[in-house]
């Protein structure tokens, strides 16, 4: 994975988010939503966009939002019917790949041991 490949992945992700209507039809039906927008599908997409496109928000907070998604695709089903074609669940998954790749690019990977 090179810098340009990471940039390509970033573009794919932000292009997807761009297609989101922000209709928020996915919010209430997201199983992790408990009243805070950031716990919902659309909230996750917004955070992804702010971070990848504008470098806003902390990586830890974004990670917490992304990994609290169950990848159940309930949102995606709703979104597909609205035909916005932004594949929110797959986009969240891609954003996880983005975080992994970005960290791996740092070259820490081969020395990584837990803890």
């Amino acid at each position, binding site marked *: 994975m090179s810098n340009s490949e990471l940039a390509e992945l970033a573009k794919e992700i932000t292009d997807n988010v761009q297609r989101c209507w922000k209709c928020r039809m996915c919010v209430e039906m997201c199983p992790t939503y408990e009243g805070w927008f950031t716990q919902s599908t659309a909230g996750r997409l917004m955070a992804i966009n702010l971070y990848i496109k504008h470098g806003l928000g902390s990586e830890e907070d974004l990670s917490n939002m992304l990994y609290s998604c169950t*990848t159940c695709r309930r949102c995606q089903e709703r979104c597909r019917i609205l035909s916005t074609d932004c594949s929110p669940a797959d986009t969240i998954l891609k954003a996880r*790949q983005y975080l992994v790749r970005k960290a791996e690019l740092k070259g820490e990977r081969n020395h990584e041991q837990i803890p």
Partner: protein
Amino acid sequence: MSKSLKDVIPVGHIYIKDNILEKDSLAGVSESKALWAKDLNLPKKAEYTFFAACGYQHMKYVEGMMGALKSASKMGMGMGKVVGISKAFGKVGVDLTGITAKITASKDDPYTPVLISAISVLRKLGLDVGYLHEEEPCCGSPMYYAGFEDDYAEHSRKNYEIFESFGVKKLIGLVPACTASLRDYYPKYIEGYDLEVQHVLEVVVQKLKKTGVKPKVKENVKVTYHDPCQLSRYLELTDEPREILKSIEGIELADLDPEQCGKWSTCCGGGGLEATHPELAERVGVRRVEELLETGASVIVSNCPACEMQLTKVTKKLNANVKVIDLVRLLDESLE
């Protein structure tokens, strides 16, 4: 500045990825995955190859693993905030390897019998099925969902070589996530991927129709069905389980409202979320079980090891007078 892997990726996911890469098992235990099949006389070569996956066989260990990760997260971090858990491990001197050593099988193991039932059902319906035993690899899908796409892709190519070396042509999967991984994701990473992958429920429905067999339960029972996300929205199999349930004499299916079942079914919070956000996973589970209980059914039928582990745990916690049973086990008991 960019952070290192363990600062941003939940340690539970890194741990599971390492288990798969190093021990070829989700739970990282070195006990054979094939023990359940030792008395079944399953050949390695047959028309269909059964893919058992880590799920049911190692589930008894996964419960322990999730428990260990949960207590570790509690030690280090506040509610739900588990991302920085590896740092916390460092601080309180928790040693993950030590935790692994302590992971033991729960005595009460409702999961392995599901595998035996699956084989039994396929045989009763006249299929020639084999199994790769020790040679069966872990499909690697938890890595995919954790964001380790490259590791997953590499793992999938290695696995394909294993399947090829045994002359596998048709796979029958049981765990929904692994079946979706083999059917829908492997082709993206493997050139010329030619394995025919079906889920056991698809095969069963076709066979039930063809053979005209009439399954029957001993005692009449009212059940409801929980669609595993991976089965309903990934494999897109929502009619098959219902057709099977309706074909069993003595079963009354009390389905949920259309917006809570089938392709709209609510997630139960089982699976990966438990490794990173255990409290949230539990709340999601409680909300789902409450929906299911409203049907008044005395049995919740499902067919995914992660869902069953979660639903069992939550129904116990809520003291609900309801049993959780795998569809394949129910079917096995209803077939002669």
